[in-house]
């Protein structure tokens, strides 16, 4: 295995010895929020795991705003926590810069390696821009791993109906249809996982790919499901986080996340081919209602982007999509803004055809993923218009209906997965 931790960190880890729990926080210029996250994690470890030896690891991407200093200096008021039993060992804390491709995935890799070096039984990772994290999140993400032998615990949040649209329209329905597990927030960003799974992650040679960036979350979740490990969910309430990362561009983010999922479909083809339907996964914690922040969406801009894509990217779509799908997309583009709607069946076929084209490398994969962005924006606009007056439960039922179509249409995916003579002829016509 490639050794990538710096010598001073290795020396520090040798001094530390073994721990039971590693809590990881990736960061990059998060000085505004990371102090709160560090306090919540430290409090959670002290309050819920007083008997366990634990360490908090901040894996930083070279912040210049004092993020690392804040991590090391954040004070936790143990008296205010009303601890039943005081921690046998205080929570240790270290902050280290990670090496490799700049991104969340590289930060996680360092945390996985720290967990391996310290022989940790359970790990938890949380985002550094969280404003709604509480100490109980740590318990809910760690305890199923530590005491119930779960390998991967995904978060289950309450989010605004317009929030997490890549998750709702692609990632959740696709992972559910592929692996048969109803993990509602596969790319939530806050996870608990076992040592066994951390070792599986470290074995994989993916650290020069999009997994090292935004692709890490879907990769972690899909790997856990694809490897057939025990997967659960933890009910964490609302997810409130800092304003959007200014460095995150939708096209890049979309390409990395959805492209990573399409790439994983190739790796786990033997697994998902035979999966039919889906089953719920255990949910830990006590579900409760919370208010979520209102969100503004510019639907007209999204529809404009969709129309521009359908008009200008015809040649590219000709290499990816079936003629009937292209015709249907063209017809939707011609609709008035008030009547604009992309039906579920069309969306599912579209995504499956893109996944197949990605697998068959019909064109450059970056171009392929970029060309999906306008269509995704169109679908998001359609969804927003559709659920504008719906409550949270109705929206959840709407997403459930979409998931059932993804599952029902899986034979369509299989029929397009391998290049067929019909596909070749269709391709020859369009080129």
């Amino acid at each position, binding site marked *: 295995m490639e050794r990538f931790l710096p010598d001073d960190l290795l020396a520090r880890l040798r001094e530390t010895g073994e721990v039971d729990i590693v809590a990881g926080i990736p960061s990059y210029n998060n000085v505004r929020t990371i102090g709160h996250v560090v306090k919540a994690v430290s409090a959670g470890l002290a309050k819920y795991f007083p008997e366990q030896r634990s360490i908090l690891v901040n894996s930083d991407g070279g912040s210049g705003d004092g993020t690392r200093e804040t991590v090391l200096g954040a004070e936790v008021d143990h008296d205010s926590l009303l601890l039943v039993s005081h921690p046998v060992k205080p929570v240790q804390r270290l902050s280290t810069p990670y090496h490799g491709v700049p991104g969340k995935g590289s930060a996680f890799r360092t945390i996985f390696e720290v967990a391996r070096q310290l022989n940790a039984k359970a790990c938890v990772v949380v985002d550094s821009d969280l404003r709604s994290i509480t100490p109980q999140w740590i318990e809910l993400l760690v305890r199923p791993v530590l005491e119930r032998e779960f390998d991967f615990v995904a978060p289950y949040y309450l989010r605004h109906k317009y*929030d997490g649209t890549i*998750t709702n329209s692609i990632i959740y329905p696709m992972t559910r249809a592929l692996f048969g597990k109803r993990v509602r927030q596969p790319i939530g960003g806050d996870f608990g996982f076992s040592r066994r799974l951390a070792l599986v992650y470290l074995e994989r040679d993916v650290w020069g790919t999009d997994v090292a960036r935004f692709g890490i979350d879907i990769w972690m979740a899909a790997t856990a499901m694809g490897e057939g490990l025990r997967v659960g969910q933890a009910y964490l309430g609302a997810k409130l*986080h800092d304003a959007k990362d200014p460095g995150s561009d939708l096209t890049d983010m979309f390409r990395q996340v959805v492209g990573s999922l399409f790439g994983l479909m190739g790796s786990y083809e033997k697994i998902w081919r035979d999966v039919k339907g889906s089953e719920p996964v255990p949910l830990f914690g006590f579900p409760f209602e919370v208010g979520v922040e209102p*969100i503004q969406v510019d639907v007209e*801009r999204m529809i404009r*982007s969709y129309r521009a*894509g359908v008009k200008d990217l015809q040649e590219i779509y000709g290499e990816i999509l079936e003629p009937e799908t292209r015709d249907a997309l063209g017809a939707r583009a011609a609709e008035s803004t008030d009547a604009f709607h992309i039906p579920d069946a069309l969306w599912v076929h579209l995504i499956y055809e893109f996944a197949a084209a990605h697998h068959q490398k019909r064109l450059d994969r970056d171009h392929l993923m970029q060309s999906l*962005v306008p269509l995704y924006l169109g679908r*998001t606009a359609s969804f927003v218009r559709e659920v504008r007056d719906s409550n949270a439960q109705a929206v959840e039922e709407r997403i459930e209906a979409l998931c059932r179509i993804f599952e029902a249409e899986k034979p369509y995916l299989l029929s397009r997965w391998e290049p067929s003579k019909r596909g070749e002829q269709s391709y*020859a016509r369009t080129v």
Partner: protein
Amino acid sequence: MRELFEKAFVAPLGRLADQFAGVVPGLITVALVLIVGGMVAAFARMVIERLLRWGKFDRFMAQTELGSVIHRTGIFRSASDFAARLVQGALWLLFILVALNALDTEMTRNLVVRFVNYVPDLITAGLVLLLGSLISHFLGRSALLAAVNAGWSGARLIAGGVRLLVMSLTVVVALEQLRIGRTALLVAFAILFGGVVVAGAIAFGLAGRDLVRDWLQAQTRAEGRKEEDFRHL
């Protein structure tokens, strides 16, 4: 009279017959080489087209500007058809050279030598064209996707401009390699390219000033702007 007739007609005819007899084997060889060459070239075209189709050459060429150009000409069924016909033509040329060589005259010998010396340049120019068309197609698509996703109008125009620019450079380099109109070509290209840049700058400055003003205002105007604060992930 008879002597005169022999000197005037029979002797020249005899010499002509002798000369013709000397050339005939060469001509027969030329004819045979051309017939066999034609058959070999046709057979090679058939085999190569099938091999290329089997090796998904059309799909590869679809990623190049050359592939698009071949498709747009409407002359060739596919890139495989084009490549197979190219090989057929090259084989034909080769057999014509062999046939010329069979005539064994000074002129044909010089022609063959000059052509053989030119072959490396032809191959290099062909490779430059192929590579340039590949890059042009890729960059054109990158520009198109970036422009569409950035919400710019005239995305196809931008992509077309990128493709044209790269292909123009490629053609200039290829012709330079073939030593065709070097100076005239470079001067023409410099004038053309410079003209395009100046015209573009003037057009953008005059016709696009409102667009630029709006864009700059949009970039600097924070108030009243519809912000999206939802997360896609």
